[in-house]
Protein backbone atom coordinates (compact mmCIF):
# COMPACT_ATOMS: atom_id res chain seq x y z
CA UNK A 1 0.00 0.00 0.00
CA UNK A 2 1.14 3.54 -0.67
CA UNK A 3 1.78 6.21 1.91
CA UNK A 4 -1.24 6.73 4.21
CA UNK A 5 -2.69 10.22 4.10
CA UNK A 6 -3.03 10.32 7.89
CA UNK A 7 -0.86 8.44 10.30
CA UNK A 8 -0.41 8.68 14.04
CA UNK A 9 2.37 6.91 15.88
CA UNK A 10 1.71 6.28 19.52
CA UNK A 11 0.06 9.67 19.84
CA UNK A 12 -0.49 10.89 23.38
CA UNK A 13 -1.91 14.20 24.44
CA UNK A 14 -2.86 15.97 27.65
CA UNK A 15 -3.92 19.54 28.22
CA UNK A 16 -1.34 21.35 30.29
CA UNK A 17 -3.03 21.95 33.64
CA UNK A 18 -1.60 22.94 37.01
CA UNK A 19 -2.62 19.83 38.87
CA UNK A 20 -1.95 16.33 37.55
CA UNK A 21 -2.32 16.46 33.76
CA UNK A 22 -5.27 14.43 32.52
CA UNK A 23 -4.35 12.14 29.65
CA UNK A 24 -6.81 12.71 26.86
CA UNK A 25 -5.21 10.73 24.05
CA UNK A 26 -3.42 7.66 25.29
CA UNK A 27 -1.28 6.00 22.65
CA UNK A 28 -3.28 6.22 19.46
CA UNK A 29 -1.87 4.30 16.50
CA UNK A 30 -3.81 4.91 13.37
CA UNK A 31 -3.36 4.80 9.62
CA UNK A 32 -5.87 6.13 7.17
CA UNK A 33 -5.38 5.43 3.47
CA UNK A 34 -6.15 8.02 0.82
CA UNK A 35 -9.70 7.74 -0.49
CA UNK A 36 -11.08 6.05 2.61
CA UNK A 37 -14.33 6.94 4.35
CA UNK A 38 -13.72 6.48 8.06
CA UNK A 39 -16.22 7.09 10.86
CA UNK A 40 -15.03 7.75 14.41
CA UNK A 41 -17.35 6.84 17.28
CA UNK A 42 -16.99 7.29 21.00
CA UNK A 43 -18.89 8.57 24.02
CA UNK A 44 -18.67 12.18 25.16
CA UNK A 45 -15.19 13.14 26.25
CA UNK A 46 -13.55 10.10 24.73
CA UNK A 47 -11.11 12.31 22.84
CA UNK A 48 -12.57 12.31 19.33
CA UNK A 49 -12.37 16.08 18.84
CA UNK A 50 -8.93 16.15 20.35
CA UNK A 51 -7.80 13.50 17.89
CA UNK A 52 -9.36 15.45 15.02
CA UNK A 53 -7.51 18.60 16.02
CA UNK A 54 -4.24 16.70 15.75
CA UNK A 55 -4.96 15.86 12.16
CA UNK A 56 -4.24 19.37 10.92
CA UNK A 57 -1.90 20.68 13.56
CA UNK A 58 -4.42 22.73 15.52
CA UNK A 59 -3.05 20.73 18.45
CA UNK A 60 0.40 19.20 18.55
CA UNK A 61 1.08 15.86 20.24
CA UNK A 62 2.48 15.77 23.77
CA UNK A 63 4.08 12.48 22.81
CA UNK A 64 4.33 10.46 19.61
CA UNK A 65 3.98 11.70 16.06
CA UNK A 66 1.30 12.66 13.57
CA UNK A 67 1.99 12.59 9.83
CA UNK A 68 -0.17 14.20 7.17
CA UNK A 69 0.72 12.64 3.82
CA UNK A 70 4.20 12.10 5.16
CA UNK A 71 4.68 15.54 6.73
CA UNK A 72 5.26 15.66 10.47
CA UNK A 73 2.63 18.04 11.91
CA UNK A 74 5.20 19.40 14.35
CA UNK A 75 7.06 20.91 11.39
CA UNK A 76 6.04 24.57 11.58
CA UNK A 77 7.50 25.40 8.18
CA UNK A 78 4.97 23.13 6.49
CA UNK A 79 1.94 24.33 8.49
CA UNK A 80 0.07 25.69 5.49
CA UNK A 81 0.77 22.54 3.47
CA UNK A 82 -0.67 20.46 6.29
CA UNK A 83 -3.77 22.60 6.64
CA UNK A 84 -4.49 22.74 2.93
CA UNK A 85 -4.18 18.94 2.75
CA UNK A 86 -6.53 18.24 5.63
CA UNK A 87 -9.60 20.48 5.83
CA UNK A 88 -11.70 20.60 8.97
CA UNK A 89 -15.44 21.12 9.42
CA UNK A 90 -16.92 21.67 12.87
CA UNK A 91 -20.23 21.22 14.58
CA UNK A 92 -21.63 24.73 14.55
CA UNK A 93 -21.81 26.14 11.02
CA UNK A 94 -22.46 29.67 12.33
CA UNK A 95 -19.04 29.81 13.93
CA UNK A 96 -17.10 28.74 10.85
CA UNK A 97 -18.51 31.14 8.31
CA UNK A 98 -16.44 34.32 8.10
CA UNK A 99 -18.14 36.33 5.36
CA UNK A 100 -21.60 37.75 4.69
CA UNK A 101 -21.84 36.34 1.20
CA UNK A 102 -21.69 32.62 0.42
CA UNK A 103 -19.10 32.79 -2.34
CA UNK A 104 -16.92 35.25 -0.47
CA UNK A 105 -16.85 32.92 2.49
CA UNK A 106 -15.94 30.07 0.20
CA UNK A 107 -13.04 32.12 -1.17
CA UNK A 108 -11.54 32.71 2.28
CA UNK A 109 -9.31 29.62 2.27
CA UNK A 110 -7.78 30.03 -1.20
CA UNK A 111 -7.32 33.76 -0.51
CA UNK A 112 -5.28 32.93 2.57
CA UNK A 113 -3.18 30.59 0.47
CA UNK A 114 -2.39 33.38 -1.98
CA UNK A 115 -4.06 31.74 -4.99
CA UNK A 116 -4.42 34.13 -7.97
CA UNK A 117 -7.92 35.73 -8.27
CA UNK A 118 -9.18 33.92 -11.38
CA UNK A 119 -8.08 30.55 -10.01
CA UNK A 120 -9.90 31.31 -6.76
CA UNK A 121 -13.01 31.95 -8.85
CA UNK A 122 -12.85 28.52 -10.54
CA UNK A 123 -12.05 26.73 -7.27
CA UNK A 124 -14.91 28.47 -5.47
CA UNK A 125 -17.38 27.70 -8.26
CA UNK A 126 -16.28 24.06 -8.35
CA UNK A 127 -16.56 23.75 -4.55
CA UNK A 128 -20.03 25.32 -4.48
CA UNK A 129 -21.19 23.05 -7.27
CA UNK A 130 -19.82 20.00 -5.46
CA UNK A 131 -21.99 20.72 -2.42
CA UNK A 132 -24.98 21.82 -4.50
CA UNK A 133 -24.93 25.44 -3.29
CA UNK A 134 -23.87 27.19 -6.48
CA UNK A 135 -27.32 28.67 -7.08
CA UNK A 136 -27.17 30.39 -3.66
CA UNK A 137 -23.66 31.79 -4.13
CA UNK A 138 -24.62 35.44 -3.62
CA UNK A 139 -26.90 34.85 -0.64
CA UNK A 140 -26.26 35.82 2.97
CA UNK A 141 -25.32 32.67 4.92
CA UNK A 142 -27.21 33.66 8.06
CA UNK A 143 -30.51 33.47 6.18
CA UNK A 144 -29.98 29.86 5.07
CA UNK A 145 -30.95 26.62 6.81
CA UNK A 146 -28.58 24.74 9.08
CA UNK A 147 -27.93 22.04 6.48
CA UNK A 148 -27.21 24.64 3.82
CA UNK A 149 -24.86 26.52 6.14
CA UNK A 150 -22.99 23.34 6.92
CA UNK A 151 -22.66 22.61 3.20
CA UNK A 152 -21.19 26.10 2.75
CA UNK A 153 -18.71 25.33 5.49
CA UNK A 154 -17.79 22.16 3.60
CA UNK A 155 -17.46 24.12 0.36
CA UNK A 156 -15.21 26.62 2.14
CA UNK A 157 -12.88 23.77 2.98
CA UNK A 158 -13.17 22.14 -0.45
CA UNK A 159 -12.17 25.35 -2.17
CA UNK A 160 -8.67 24.78 -0.77
CA UNK A 161 -8.63 21.49 -2.72
CA UNK A 162 -7.83 19.33 0.31
CA UNK A 163 -7.05 15.66 -0.10
CA UNK A 164 -8.76 14.86 3.16
CA UNK A 165 -11.67 16.37 5.09
CA UNK A 166 -12.20 15.81 8.80
CA UNK A 167 -15.73 16.52 9.98
CA UNK A 168 -16.32 16.83 13.73
CA UNK A 169 -19.97 16.03 14.35
CA UNK A 170 -21.13 18.10 11.37
CA UNK A 171 -24.73 16.98 11.77
CA UNK A 172 -25.09 17.34 15.54
CA UNK A 173 -26.95 20.67 15.34
CA UNK A 174 -29.07 19.85 12.30
CA UNK A 175 -32.61 18.65 11.79
CA UNK A 176 -33.19 15.33 9.97
CA UNK A 177 -33.38 17.02 6.57
CA UNK A 178 -30.17 18.94 7.16
CA UNK A 179 -28.47 15.80 8.41
CA UNK A 180 -29.38 13.91 5.26
CA UNK A 181 -28.21 16.79 3.02
CA UNK A 182 -24.85 16.93 4.73
CA UNK A 183 -24.32 13.19 4.79
CA UNK A 184 -25.19 12.85 1.11
CA UNK A 185 -22.74 15.65 0.34
CA UNK A 186 -20.00 13.97 2.34
CA UNK A 187 -20.56 10.62 0.64
CA UNK A 188 -20.55 12.26 -2.76
CA UNK A 189 -17.25 14.00 -2.01
CA UNK A 190 -15.72 10.71 -1.04
CA UNK A 191 -16.91 8.88 -4.14
CA UNK A 192 -16.84 11.54 -6.86
CA UNK A 193 -14.08 13.89 -5.74
CA UNK A 194 -12.00 11.12 -4.18
CA UNK A 195 -11.55 13.09 -0.98
CA UNK A 196 -10.59 11.07 2.09
CA UNK A 197 -13.29 11.56 4.72
CA UNK A 198 -12.98 11.24 8.48
CA UNK A 199 -16.42 11.63 9.98
CA UNK A 200 -16.78 11.99 13.73
CA UNK A 201 -20.35 11.30 14.72
CA UNK A 202 -22.75 10.22 17.41
CA UNK A 203 -25.19 8.79 14.90
CA UNK A 204 -24.73 5.08 14.35
CA UNK A 205 -26.70 5.13 11.11
CA UNK A 206 -24.19 7.65 9.70
CA UNK A 207 -21.24 5.57 10.82
CA UNK A 208 -22.82 2.48 9.28
CA UNK A 209 -22.44 4.07 5.85
CA UNK A 210 -18.67 4.45 6.20
CA UNK A 211 -16.16 1.95 4.92
CA UNK A 212 -14.38 1.72 8.25
CA UNK A 213 -15.41 2.45 11.81
CA UNK A 214 -13.08 3.39 14.65
CA UNK A 215 -14.40 3.23 18.20
CA UNK A 216 -12.67 5.33 20.84
CA UNK A 217 -12.94 5.19 24.59
CA UNK A 218 -10.92 7.16 27.13
CA UNK A 219 -8.35 8.28 24.59
CA UNK A 220 -7.74 4.83 23.15
CA UNK A 221 -8.89 3.05 20.05
CA UNK A 222 -10.87 0.07 21.26
CA UNK A 223 -12.18 -1.24 17.97
CA UNK A 224 -11.35 -0.65 14.33
CA UNK A 225 -12.87 -2.39 11.35
CA UNK A 226 -15.65 -2.56 8.78
CA UNK A 227 -19.12 -1.55 10.06
CA UNK A 228 -20.24 -5.12 9.44
CA UNK A 229 -17.62 -6.39 11.87
CA UNK A 230 -17.95 -3.66 14.49
CA UNK A 231 -21.67 -3.19 14.96
CA UNK A 232 -22.55 -6.82 15.72
CA UNK A 233 -20.28 -6.58 18.80
CA UNK A 234 -23.17 -5.32 20.89
CA UNK A 235 -21.62 -6.02 24.30
CA UNK A 236 -18.40 -4.25 23.38
CA UNK A 237 -20.29 -1.19 22.13
CA UNK A 238 -22.40 -1.06 25.27
CA UNK A 239 -19.33 -1.37 27.47
CA UNK A 240 -17.89 1.83 25.99
CA UNK A 241 -21.17 3.68 26.38
CA UNK A 242 -22.46 3.45 22.84
CA UNK A 243 -25.79 2.15 21.67
CA UNK A 244 -25.61 -0.11 18.61
CA UNK A 245 -27.70 0.90 15.57
CA UNK A 246 -31.41 0.27 16.06
CA UNK A 247 -31.46 -2.46 13.42
CA UNK A 248 -28.66 -4.38 15.12
CA UNK A 249 -30.30 -3.82 18.49
CA UNK A 250 -33.52 -5.35 17.19
CA UNK A 251 -31.73 -8.35 15.74
CA UNK A 252 -29.75 -8.75 18.96
CA UNK A 253 -32.80 -8.75 21.18
CA UNK A 254 -34.62 -11.18 18.88
CA UNK A 255 -31.61 -13.49 18.85
CA UNK A 256 -31.63 -13.49 22.63
CA UNK A 257 -35.15 -14.86 22.34
CA UNK A 258 -33.73 -17.68 20.29
CA UNK A 259 -34.57 -16.51 16.80
CA UNK A 260 -32.10 -17.22 14.04
CA UNK A 261 -31.20 -13.79 12.70
CA UNK A 262 -27.98 -12.31 11.35
CA UNK A 263 -26.42 -9.50 13.43
CA UNK A 264 -24.89 -7.67 10.51
CA UNK A 265 -28.09 -6.44 8.92
CA UNK A 266 -27.23 -2.74 9.17
CA UNK A 267 -29.60 -0.94 6.85
CA UNK A 268 -33.37 -0.88 7.26
CA UNK A 269 -33.78 -2.87 4.03
CA UNK A 270 -31.38 -5.61 5.09
CA UNK A 271 -33.11 -5.78 8.43
CA UNK A 272 -36.54 -6.05 6.83
CA UNK A 273 -35.23 -8.64 4.40
CA UNK A 274 -33.79 -10.76 7.22
CA UNK A 275 -37.08 -10.66 9.11
CA UNK A 276 -38.98 -11.50 5.94
CA UNK A 277 -36.77 -14.53 5.20
CA UNK A 278 -37.19 -15.75 8.75
CA UNK A 279 -40.95 -15.36 8.73
CA UNK A 280 -41.48 -16.90 5.32
CA UNK A 281 -39.48 -19.96 6.32
Amino acid at each position, binding site marked *: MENPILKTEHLTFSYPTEDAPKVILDGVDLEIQAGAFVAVLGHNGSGKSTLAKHMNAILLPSGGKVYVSGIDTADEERLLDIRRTVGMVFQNPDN*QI*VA*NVVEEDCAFGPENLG*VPPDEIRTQVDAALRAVGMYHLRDHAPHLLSGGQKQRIAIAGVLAMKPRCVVLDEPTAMLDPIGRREVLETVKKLNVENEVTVVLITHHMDEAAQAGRVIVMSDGKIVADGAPRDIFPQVEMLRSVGLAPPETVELMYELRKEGLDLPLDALSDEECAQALYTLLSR
Partner: protein
Amino acid sequence: MALKDITLGQYFPGDSILHRLDPRAKILLTVFYIVALFMAKNILSYSLMFATLTGCILVSHVGFRVLVRGMKPILFIVVFTAILNLFYTPGEGEPLVAFWIFKIYWEGIRTAFFMVLRIMMLISCTFLLTYTTSPILLTDALESLLGPLKKLRLPIHELAMMMSIALRFIPTLIEETDKIMAAQKARGADFDSGNLLEKAKALIPLLVPLFISAFRRADELAVAMECRCYHGGEGRTRMRQLKYAGRDYTALLLGFGLCLSIWGINLLGVF
Protein backbone atom coordinates in the same frame (compact mmCIF):
# COMPACT_ATOMS: atom_id res chain seq x y z
CA MET B 1 -37.44 47.07 21.85
CA ALA B 2 -37.54 45.49 18.44
CA LEU B 3 -34.10 44.21 17.64
CA LYS B 4 -35.01 43.57 14.05
CA ASP B 5 -35.12 47.33 13.60
CA ILE B 6 -31.36 47.57 13.91
CA THR B 7 -30.31 47.87 10.31
CA LEU B 8 -26.88 49.16 11.26
CA GLY B 9 -24.29 47.81 8.91
CA GLN B 10 -26.85 45.84 7.00
CA TYR B 11 -26.55 45.32 3.28
CA PHE B 12 -29.43 45.23 0.83
CA PRO B 13 -28.26 43.44 -2.31
CA GLY B 14 -29.26 45.17 -5.53
CA ASP B 15 -28.11 46.16 -8.96
CA SER B 16 -28.45 49.95 -8.97
CA ILE B 17 -25.68 52.25 -10.15
CA LEU B 18 -24.94 52.97 -6.49
CA HIS B 19 -24.46 49.25 -5.85
CA ARG B 20 -22.14 48.99 -8.81
CA LEU B 21 -19.88 51.92 -7.96
CA ASP B 22 -16.46 50.97 -6.68
CA PRO B 23 -16.63 50.79 -2.86
CA ARG B 24 -13.57 53.02 -2.52
CA ALA B 25 -15.27 55.65 -4.66
CA LYS B 26 -18.36 55.32 -2.49
CA ILE B 27 -16.40 55.84 0.72
CA LEU B 28 -14.71 58.91 -0.76
CA LEU B 29 -18.06 60.22 -1.97
CA THR B 30 -19.50 59.79 1.50
CA VAL B 31 -16.56 61.74 2.90
CA PHE B 32 -17.12 64.49 0.30
CA TYR B 33 -20.78 64.60 1.21
CA ILE B 34 -20.05 64.89 4.92
CA VAL B 35 -17.53 67.66 4.31
CA ALA B 36 -20.05 69.51 2.17
CA LEU B 37 -22.69 68.98 4.84
CA PHE B 38 -20.53 70.64 7.45
CA MET B 39 -19.81 73.56 5.15
CA ALA B 40 -23.48 74.12 4.36
CA LYS B 41 -24.81 77.17 6.13
CA ASN B 42 -27.97 78.36 4.42
CA ILE B 43 -31.21 77.25 2.86
CA LEU B 44 -29.82 77.11 -0.66
CA SER B 45 -26.92 74.84 0.25
CA TYR B 46 -29.12 72.67 2.46
CA SER B 47 -31.61 72.33 -0.39
CA LEU B 48 -28.80 71.28 -2.69
CA MET B 49 -27.57 68.71 -0.16
CA PHE B 50 -31.08 67.45 0.40
CA ALA B 51 -31.75 67.13 -3.31
CA THR B 52 -28.50 65.21 -3.81
CA LEU B 53 -29.34 62.79 -1.01
CA THR B 54 -32.92 62.26 -2.21
CA GLY B 55 -31.62 61.62 -5.70
CA CYS B 56 -29.15 59.04 -4.43
CA ILE B 57 -31.78 57.30 -2.31
CA LEU B 58 -34.16 57.13 -5.29
CA VAL B 59 -31.44 55.75 -7.54
CA SER B 60 -30.37 53.15 -4.97
CA HIS B 61 -33.83 51.47 -4.78
CA VAL B 62 -33.27 51.03 -1.06
CA GLY B 63 -36.49 52.84 -0.19
CA PHE B 64 -37.14 55.61 2.27
CA ARG B 65 -38.98 53.30 4.64
CA VAL B 66 -35.90 51.20 5.37
CA LEU B 67 -33.91 54.35 5.94
CA VAL B 68 -36.45 55.75 8.36
CA ARG B 69 -36.64 52.42 10.17
CA GLY B 70 -32.87 52.42 10.55
CA MET B 71 -33.03 55.88 12.02
CA LYS B 72 -35.44 54.98 14.83
CA PRO B 73 -32.79 53.97 17.37
CA ILE B 74 -31.10 57.35 17.15
CA LEU B 75 -34.32 59.38 17.21
CA PHE B 76 -33.69 60.13 20.86
CA ILE B 77 -30.36 61.81 20.14
CA VAL B 78 -31.90 63.85 17.35
CA VAL B 79 -34.77 65.09 19.51
CA PHE B 80 -32.39 65.83 22.37
CA THR B 81 -30.08 67.91 20.16
CA ALA B 82 -33.05 69.73 18.70
CA ILE B 83 -34.38 70.69 22.13
CA LEU B 84 -30.98 71.83 23.36
CA ASN B 85 -30.50 73.99 20.31
CA LEU B 86 -34.01 75.35 20.52
CA PHE B 87 -33.62 76.67 24.05
CA TYR B 88 -29.97 77.51 24.23
CA THR B 89 -29.42 79.51 21.07
CA PRO B 90 -29.29 83.16 22.04
CA GLY B 91 -30.84 85.57 19.60
CA GLU B 92 -31.14 89.25 18.98
CA GLY B 93 -34.37 91.09 19.46
CA GLU B 94 -37.53 89.88 21.13
CA PRO B 95 -37.91 86.18 21.96
CA LEU B 96 -40.76 84.52 20.08
CA VAL B 97 -41.91 82.62 23.14
CA ALA B 98 -40.93 83.19 26.72
CA PHE B 99 -42.07 81.29 29.77
CA TRP B 100 -40.42 80.86 33.13
CA ILE B 101 -36.68 80.70 32.44
CA PHE B 102 -37.05 79.57 28.83
CA LYS B 103 -36.85 81.86 25.87
CA ILE B 104 -37.15 80.72 22.30
CA TYR B 105 -35.71 82.96 19.61
CA TRP B 106 -36.10 82.76 15.86
CA GLU B 107 -32.43 81.81 15.68
CA GLY B 108 -33.07 78.87 17.99
CA ILE B 109 -35.73 77.46 15.72
CA ARG B 110 -33.49 77.94 12.75
CA THR B 111 -30.45 76.29 14.36
CA ALA B 112 -32.51 73.40 15.72
CA PHE B 113 -34.10 72.82 12.34
CA PHE B 114 -30.78 72.81 10.49
CA MET B 115 -29.15 70.70 13.16
CA VAL B 116 -31.81 68.02 12.89
CA LEU B 117 -31.60 68.14 9.13
CA ARG B 118 -27.84 67.83 9.25
CA ILE B 119 -27.84 64.85 11.61
CA MET B 120 -30.52 63.09 9.57
CA MET B 121 -28.65 63.65 6.31
CA LEU B 122 -25.37 62.63 7.87
CA ILE B 123 -26.83 59.37 9.07
CA SER B 124 -28.77 58.75 5.88
CA CYS B 125 -25.69 59.11 3.74
CA THR B 126 -23.63 56.71 5.85
CA PHE B 127 -26.54 54.27 5.96
CA LEU B 128 -26.83 54.53 2.21
CA LEU B 129 -23.17 53.54 1.96
CA THR B 130 -23.60 50.39 4.05
CA TYR B 131 -26.98 49.54 2.52
CA THR B 132 -25.56 49.49 -0.99
CA THR B 133 -22.13 47.98 -0.33
CA SER B 134 -21.49 44.42 0.75
CA PRO B 135 -19.58 44.52 4.05
CA ILE B 136 -16.73 42.54 2.56
CA LEU B 137 -16.32 45.10 -0.22
CA LEU B 138 -16.60 47.88 2.32
CA THR B 139 -13.81 46.52 4.46
CA ASP B 140 -11.74 45.67 1.38
CA ALA B 141 -12.13 49.26 0.28
CA LEU B 142 -11.18 50.60 3.70
CA GLU B 143 -8.16 48.35 3.75
CA SER B 144 -7.15 49.56 0.33
CA LEU B 145 -7.77 53.25 1.07
CA LEU B 146 -5.89 53.05 4.36
CA GLY B 147 -3.25 50.78 2.81
CA PRO B 148 -0.52 53.44 2.76
CA LEU B 149 -0.75 53.60 6.58
CA LYS B 150 0.56 50.02 6.73
CA LYS B 151 3.99 51.54 6.13
CA LEU B 152 3.62 53.26 9.48
CA ARG B 153 3.12 49.77 10.96
CA LEU B 154 -0.52 50.41 11.70
CA PRO B 155 -2.44 47.12 11.74
CA ILE B 156 -4.75 48.03 8.87
CA HIS B 157 -5.40 44.49 7.65
CA GLU B 158 -6.22 43.32 11.16
CA LEU B 159 -8.60 46.24 11.67
CA ALA B 160 -10.35 45.53 8.39
CA MET B 161 -10.66 41.85 9.28
CA MET B 162 -12.06 42.66 12.69
CA MET B 163 -14.59 44.98 11.15
CA SER B 164 -15.77 42.50 8.58
CA ILE B 165 -16.14 39.77 11.19
CA ALA B 166 -18.01 42.12 13.49
CA LEU B 167 -20.38 42.92 10.66
CA ARG B 168 -20.73 39.24 9.84
CA PHE B 169 -21.73 38.42 13.41
CA ILE B 170 -24.20 41.26 13.99
CA PRO B 171 -27.17 39.32 12.57
CA THR B 172 -26.12 36.13 14.37
CA LEU B 173 -25.84 37.89 17.72
CA ILE B 174 -29.11 39.76 17.22
CA GLU B 175 -30.84 36.47 16.52
CA GLU B 176 -29.24 35.01 19.59
CA THR B 177 -30.33 37.96 21.75
CA ASP B 178 -33.89 37.48 20.54
CA LYS B 179 -33.71 33.81 21.47
CA ILE B 180 -32.32 34.44 24.95
CA MET B 181 -34.92 37.17 25.51
CA ALA B 182 -37.70 34.81 24.52
CA ALA B 183 -36.29 32.16 26.83
CA GLN B 184 -36.06 34.61 29.75
CA LYS B 185 -39.53 35.98 29.06
CA ALA B 186 -40.88 32.45 29.11
CA ARG B 187 -39.53 32.21 32.63
CA GLY B 188 -41.22 35.43 33.64
CA ALA B 189 -38.52 38.00 32.95
CA ASP B 190 -39.87 41.45 32.20
CA PHE B 191 -37.85 43.70 29.91
CA ASP B 192 -40.43 46.34 29.15
CA SER B 193 -41.78 47.79 32.38
CA GLY B 194 -40.25 49.55 35.33
CA ASN B 195 -38.00 52.57 35.50
CA LEU B 196 -34.65 52.91 33.82
CA LEU B 197 -32.73 51.23 36.64
CA GLU B 198 -35.11 48.27 36.72
CA LYS B 199 -34.87 47.93 32.97
CA ALA B 200 -31.10 47.97 33.13
CA LYS B 201 -31.18 45.32 35.84
CA ALA B 202 -33.45 43.16 33.72
CA LEU B 203 -30.80 43.22 31.01
CA ILE B 204 -28.18 41.47 33.14
CA PRO B 205 -29.61 37.96 32.72
CA LEU B 206 -29.68 38.74 29.03
CA LEU B 207 -26.16 40.06 28.68
CA VAL B 208 -24.36 37.39 30.68
CA PRO B 209 -25.35 34.43 28.48
CA LEU B 210 -24.90 36.60 25.40
CA PHE B 211 -21.32 37.44 26.34
CA ILE B 212 -20.47 33.88 27.25
CA SER B 213 -21.77 32.66 23.95
CA ALA B 214 -19.97 35.41 22.06
CA PHE B 215 -16.67 34.35 23.62
CA ARG B 216 -17.30 30.72 22.74
CA ARG B 217 -18.12 31.73 19.19
CA ALA B 218 -14.96 33.80 18.94
CA ASP B 219 -12.92 30.85 20.13
CA GLU B 220 -14.45 28.45 17.61
CA LEU B 221 -14.20 30.98 14.82
CA ALA B 222 -10.51 31.51 15.51
CA VAL B 223 -9.87 27.78 15.20
CA ALA B 224 -11.98 27.53 12.05
CA MET B 225 -10.05 30.43 10.51
CA GLU B 226 -6.76 28.79 11.35
CA CYS B 227 -7.98 25.57 9.76
CA ARG B 228 -8.60 27.56 6.62
CA CYS B 229 -5.00 28.68 6.58
CA TYR B 230 -5.57 32.20 7.86
CA HIS B 231 -2.23 33.65 8.92
CA GLY B 232 -2.68 37.39 8.74
CA GLY B 233 -2.66 39.66 5.74
CA GLU B 234 0.75 38.62 4.46
CA GLY B 235 0.67 36.91 1.07
CA ARG B 236 -3.10 37.01 0.97
CA THR B 237 -4.89 37.50 -2.36
CA ARG B 238 -8.50 38.46 -3.00
CA MET B 239 -11.01 36.77 -5.27
CA ARG B 240 -12.64 40.06 -6.13
CA GLN B 241 -10.20 42.73 -7.27
CA LEU B 242 -11.25 46.34 -6.85
CA LYS B 243 -11.09 48.27 -10.10
CA TYR B 244 -12.06 51.87 -10.80
CA ALA B 245 -14.29 52.28 -13.85
CA GLY B 246 -15.30 55.39 -15.78
CA ARG B 247 -18.46 55.81 -13.71
CA ASP B 248 -16.38 55.96 -10.53
CA TYR B 249 -14.35 58.92 -11.84
CA THR B 250 -17.55 60.65 -12.95
CA ALA B 251 -19.12 60.11 -9.54
CA LEU B 252 -16.02 61.39 -7.76
CA LEU B 253 -15.99 64.48 -9.96
CA LEU B 254 -19.65 65.10 -9.17
CA GLY B 255 -18.95 64.70 -5.47
CA PHE B 256 -16.09 67.13 -5.65
CA GLY B 257 -18.35 69.47 -7.61
CA LEU B 258 -20.88 69.35 -4.80
CA CYS B 259 -18.27 70.42 -2.27
CA LEU B 260 -17.16 73.24 -4.57
CA SER B 261 -20.70 74.52 -5.09
CA ILE B 262 -21.42 74.57 -1.36
CA TRP B 263 -18.19 76.49 -0.88
CA GLY B 264 -19.19 78.81 -3.69
CA ILE B 265 -22.61 79.46 -2.21
CA ASN B 266 -21.00 80.28 1.12
CA LEU B 267 -18.61 82.64 -0.62
CA LEU B 268 -21.37 84.44 -2.47
CA GLY B 269 -23.22 84.66 0.80
CA VAL B 270 -26.70 84.17 -0.69
CA PHE B 271 -29.24 83.61 2.06
